């Protein structure tokens, strides 16, 4: 092998082993990298015990109720549901049926006391007319 080919082989080999190492490390860290757990994972006992964590899911349609300063709603992944109580300002995009990520602690009464609520929007962008047409199409099966 010429020195140049040797260098190229060394670089390619180095990169390949680095990629494998990174892949293994990320795989091992999997659950720590996730920003939130789903309601199903909470129900399965996979959420951190005794400390604050985040739950992500959809705001159940029609579940948002305001009582004085506190907002009550249910967060769901369409399989399991968790009731949430939150005192504070909700982001503009927080809506019925849309995604949200809540941070807080799970109380003994099964209600998740949130200290922060973030709205999670999707990757679809369309004019209001198109959204309206979509909603209409959904209503008439």
């Amino acid at each position: 092998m010429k020195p140049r080919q040797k260098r190229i082989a060394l670089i390619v080999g180095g990169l390949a082993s680095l990629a494998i190492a990174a892949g293994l490390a990320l795989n091992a860290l999997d659950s720590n990298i996730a920003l939130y757990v789903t309601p199903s994972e909470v129900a399965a006992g996979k959420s951190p015990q005794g400390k604050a964590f985040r739950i992500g899911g959809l705001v159940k349609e029609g579940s948002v109720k305001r009582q004085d300063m506190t907002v009550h709603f249910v967060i769901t992944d369409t399989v399991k549901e968790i009731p949430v109580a939150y005192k504070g300002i909700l982001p503009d995009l927080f809506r019925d049926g849309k995604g949200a990520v809540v941070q807080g602690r799970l109380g003994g009464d099964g209600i998740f006391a949130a200290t922060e609520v973030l709205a999670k929007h999707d990757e679809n962008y369309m004019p209001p007319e198109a959204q309206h047409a979509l909603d209409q199409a959904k209503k008439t099966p």
Partner: protein
Amino acid sequence: MRQSIIQWFRFASPQSFYPLAGRLIPWFWGAAAAFGIAGLWISFFVAPTDAQQGEGYRIIFVHVPASWMSMFIYLVMAFWAGLGLALNTRVSGMMAQALAPTGALMAALSLWTGALWGKPMWGAWWVWDARLTSELILFFLYLGFMALQAAIDDPRRADKAGAILALVGVVNIPIIYFSVKWWNTLHQGSTINLNKAPSMAQTMLWGMLMMALCFWMYSIAVALLRVRAIILERERHTEWVKHAVE
């Protein structure tokens, strides 16, 4: 060296690359301006309001092209760095060095516009989710590359050290790109995918495409401008530079 590849290698010499870069720069500036004007016009006046996010979504026309460029410039930079390491060509290292500040600018722009977008829509300037964190790491990789190169006086050694850092950092690029698929993130998934139709209105897509092309042209123009300065600086002891500067 065989006869057939001599032509191709001609521009690997700083002396012949310098005037070529000089001739190309005005064209890329012109293209950047043209695409920029078209892109901004579409972004502000043609593209419709978004059903969910209203007018606020329009920051996407800067945010997404900047993020794309921050990742793509890194790949190009690492490619040049690797080429320089493997073939010992002089211009390769200079190209890598010239691309880094523009890449860092794009990463910073991506993080900054992302924060401005995140506050009104998500309700937070910043969250430590996988997409945001890996993009921040990319920004630091650029800064680290520039700092490392600046810390070593001998340019050839600086190129080698920088090249190794750049190549190691390549691992981060697929992590950024696929982070929204692999892990639960607050950041939404990709709107533009290779394997399905874009989930975006047509005119919005055109605006984003024009802005992306504008960023491309700008990046190339600035990188060529910078590489010319680097060539002059590194080759200042040669005869041709003395003639060129006169």
